[in-house]
């Protein structure tokens, strides 16, 4: 996923609803997902590495996915993630970088975005998300069509689609 502009041949030009960070808790029927992961999503999208313009409440993101189905198809979608109504959370972005290190913020933001997308795109609901080790790694379990599956999440603070793609390929080879 990246926020690079530019069209690709297989990009769908469809108007999608904004995926609101404020919906995180409700989507996964949990408390504190917004406070823990939503805050970092907001920080990365609206504050650092690039501060959103005053009055902006959403940011475009490019989602590169292979949708499941009888003939899996890779496609890219232009989506938007928003933070409508999260004024208090936006304010807390000013302190989160003094409380968590950068790697933690990035990892939590990646998990937050994954949770938003996996529910929006696949209807999947979180079962487990637990930190492991002293870094910023988490183990995540989300129900799949045939039972619960584990999810691999990786985040980079800033970089292009190429770098994200390369990271995805590496993690895929490690896991599969």
């Amino acid at each position, binding site marked *: 996923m990246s926020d690079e502009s530019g069209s690709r041949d297989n990009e769908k030009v469809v108007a999608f609803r904004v995926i609101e960070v404020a919906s995180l808790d409700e989507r996964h029927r949990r408390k*504190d997902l917004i406070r823990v992961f939503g805050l970092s999503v907001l920080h990365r999208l609206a504050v650092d590495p690039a501060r959103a313009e005053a009055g902006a409440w959403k940011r475009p993101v490019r989602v590169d996915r292979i949708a499941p189905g009888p003939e899996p198809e890779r496609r890219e979608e232009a989506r938007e993630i928003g933070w409508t109504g999260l004024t208090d959370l936006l304010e807390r972005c000013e*302190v*989160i970088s*003094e409380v968590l290190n950068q790697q933690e913020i990035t990892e939590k933001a990646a998990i937050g975005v994954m949770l938003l997308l996996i529910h929006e795109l696949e209807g999947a609901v979180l079962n487990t998300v*637990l*930190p*492991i080790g*002293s870094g910023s790694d988490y183990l995540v379990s989300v129900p799949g069509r045939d039972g619960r599956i584990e999810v691999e999440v990786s985040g980079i603070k800033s970089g292009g689609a190429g770098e994200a793609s390369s990271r995805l390929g590496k993690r895929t080879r*490690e896991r599969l």
Partner: protein
Amino acid sequence: MNVLEEIDQKGEVTNIALEAQAALQDGDTERSARLFRKAGEMLEASVAGLARPSERDLARFLAATHYDKGGANPEAARVCDRIQPRRLPSRVRHLYPPFLKDVRERSAPGYRDNYDRTLLEQFQFAMKAGNQSSAQKVIDLLKEHPYILPPTLMAHVRASCCEVLGKRRAATLFYQRAWQFDPDNGFYPYAYLNSLCKEGKHAEAWKIVEVQLKEQPGARWSIYALSTLHAIPMSLFEASSDFDNRLWHEHLRNIVFLFMRSIHTMSPAEKRALDPLIDHAFLLAWVSYLELDDIRGQKEVLERWIEARPHSPRPYELRGLMTYPGPASERDFREAVRLGSRDPLPYYFLAHDALTSGRFLECERQCDRALRSVPEPAIRADLLVWQAVSRWSLGRDREQVRPLLAEARNLRPDDVPIAELARAFEENGRAAHPPVPIKWEDDPTWVEQAKRRFGEDMMRRSESERPHPDNIAA
């Protein structure tokens, strides 16, 4: 069912861990410690129900992680002792060695003391020298070791370091957090409001004060009100379309009155909590009456101040200034000196009176003490000249006199009496004493000018000498 599902069947551990992490991010480490420990215990209890060694060690790794995240270092170490790294699932095995290293460090004897000492050293250097590198080191240390300090102190330290780093918004929010953790602390509301004003959010600060004054119209909130009101630049009031000078004066008078009425009814606990702020509040009350041109009010403030704070030199300095010249003024200045005044004010006027009475030894001594208080240039120039005259009159070595006159001329190059004095000194050749005894005579406007100068200086310093939390914490 995968192993995570077995470990956390109903998602309860996840819920507790999320709540714990949210508390940690809020700086509420007492709560996060409790919740992470609970999550650790639940994960540890799940080990028995797992069949495979790799799954059991994964559950232990998760348990140790949660103990560690909650600052329960001995528990984390205990659980790690039972983990065999080679049995861990391959996808997490690489995470274990650095984790184990951290656990061993945190459970080693002296861990807390070592980091506590390092934190204190860096924090003191950041505060005393305004060293940004040290301030950043403190912030980074607390990110990695959030259980070294209790929550309130951690919020305070973070706030202070953010101030040094120029992160004003973050500083304000951390001071607010410190206040939430310790609502009885007299300092944090003051620090929070002060920080809001420094951000330029005067209206927000004043709104908080107004609401609280209605609910708690006592000494505490009258002190914060005085401080906030004086932090708001007059230009902001005057720019407001509904600004009314008379109403503003009435507002100021009401707040000072509330303060004066409530200061003597404070409980001992409240006095202790507000102790660092009380002298400054009295100063602001006096400055308020100065702005209102109310001499009776100024005198009343000083009398109450002396009654409430008998060991404070400041009210004696100000009363001496108001009543100067005269025996009562001299008595007040000498009392301020006796109480250890570090302001040039009392020494300045005592030096002057000694000079005009020909008591050159005393004048020289008082000038010396005044000059050590780093007075502003105009005052410094006077003191240098008086000290030069005193030393010359006492027959001191000419090299003890010449530099004083040189510096005074540098500070006031257009001052004719200083230039004439310096010329007379040089024309005197090698003689130690002046050709005739010097009888000092002031400019007719000297008293008025000196009193105005010190009054204005006091108003400036009522802002620049605001109490800072770290005078206490450090």
